[in-house]
């Protein structure tokens, strides 16, 4: 019952979030009738996801046939949830996928493409004027933070590579790697010539 209560709360919250994106629910409607089983092996926990035009239904048990089963440890599932390139994670050895994988990939696609209209939700609670003020302020802060972080990243890499010489610069590293590659190819060629020479000497001795 505890798990059922938890799932009911998560489902309620998730569906509220999905409603904030105007395209998510029509796209989920295309998956109506499909049952996806997510089987976490460590810790052992099963979750069934049933998409439809009203959002997602989550269940701890499901008695009818499932269309797709995803089996993986919790770590991999978390990685899958966060990763941008989900196909790479799905191909890792600890992840098992059975059934119609297109259903799962479609669901991931919908969740990944979510663009939440949080201003609309805020407007429902606070009204248009406070929402516009708060949203403007938040957008400004977000832009400032994004720009600040980008500038900090650039400055830090420049300092570490150029001034403190703690790290090698990108171009310098690329040149070194290219030299190493050329050296590797030269050694392989030399190795091949020596092998051929040794082979020639062996055949002339026998004659």
């Amino acid at each position, binding site marked *: *019952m505890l798990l059922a209560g938890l799932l009911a709360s998560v489902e309620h919250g998730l569906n509220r979030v999905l409603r904030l994106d105007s395209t998510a629910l029509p796209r989920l409607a295309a998956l*109506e009738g499909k049952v996806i089983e997510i089987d976490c092996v460590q810790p052992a926990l099963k979750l069934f996801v049933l998409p439809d035009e009203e959002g997602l239904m989550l269940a701890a048990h499901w008695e009818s046939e499932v269309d797709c089963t995803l089996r993986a440890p919790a770590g991999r599932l978390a990685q899958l949830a966060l990763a941008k390139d989900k196909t790479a994670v799905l191909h890792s050895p600890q992840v098992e996928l059975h059934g119609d994988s297109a259903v799962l990939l479609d669901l991931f696609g919908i969740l990944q493409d979510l663009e939440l209209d949080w201003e609309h939700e805020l407007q429902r609670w606070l009204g248009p004027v406070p929402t516009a003020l708060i949203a403007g302020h938040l957008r400004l802060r977000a832009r400032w933070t994004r720009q600040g972080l980008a500038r900090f990243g650039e400055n830090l890499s420049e300092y570490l590579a150029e001034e403190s010489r703690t790290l090698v610069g990108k171009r310098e590293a690329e040149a070194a790697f290219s030299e190493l590659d050329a050296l590797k190819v030269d050694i392989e060629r030399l190795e091949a010539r020596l092998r051929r020479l040794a082979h020639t000497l062996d055949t002339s001795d026998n004659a």
Partner: protein
Amino acid sequence: MTDQRKGDHAEPTTHFGYQDVPESQKAKKVAEVFHSVAAKYDLMNDVLSGGMHRLWKRFTIELSGVRSGNRVLDIAGGTGDLAAKFSRLVGPTGQVVLADINESMLKVGRDRLLDRGVSGNIEFVQADAEKLPFPDNHFDCVTIAFGLRNVTHKDAAIRSMLRVLKPGGRLLILEFSKPTNKLMSKAYDAYSFAFMPLAGKLITNDSESYRYLAESIRMHPDQETLKSMMVEAGFDRVTYHNMTSGIVAVHRGIKP
């Protein structure tokens, strides 16, 4: 449940809570109870169960195995909690029938579902669980949630549900049952006979209906008895799951 008979010529009696009433009177008395509480039925369910009824119903749906295109009958469907979920699960190609013997409950349920936009694949039928007005082998799943204890002839109702199910179809009976823990049982008795009528008085101005609710729960067959009733009616693979220490149990049987 076994109904008692008084003398050879007297009308058979059955229980209405702790009272014995003529069989012909029970349906009328139950109807009066539900006419009285229909308007605030959902609120009372939330208050009296602390919202737990939603989780009990959720688990019942998980056990139903209903999927797209199925035909589902929800008997004593009341305000349509289960029917709304089933309507989502069966999709536009399926069908859900919400049946209730009580006109007031059916009206509240229909209005509530239509207000929530649940329509298209759902029908509302006023029907007696003992004489279901549907063809044989018609439904993939039949459910009755918190309704069986109000039925006069439970055996007849279970047989009727068996008849309308397709072979391989499932019957799910969600109903109050007997707590499995003695301490819980004592606390539950105190709660049922003290708090429930009081809450009924405060919210619906009707303590008698909630006294009936508490009494009818005590008169309802326990887990094993209901299981044997389902087996006798002809159900196969009958199992039950206790929830909240047996305060509620969901029985499931498959039509062979």
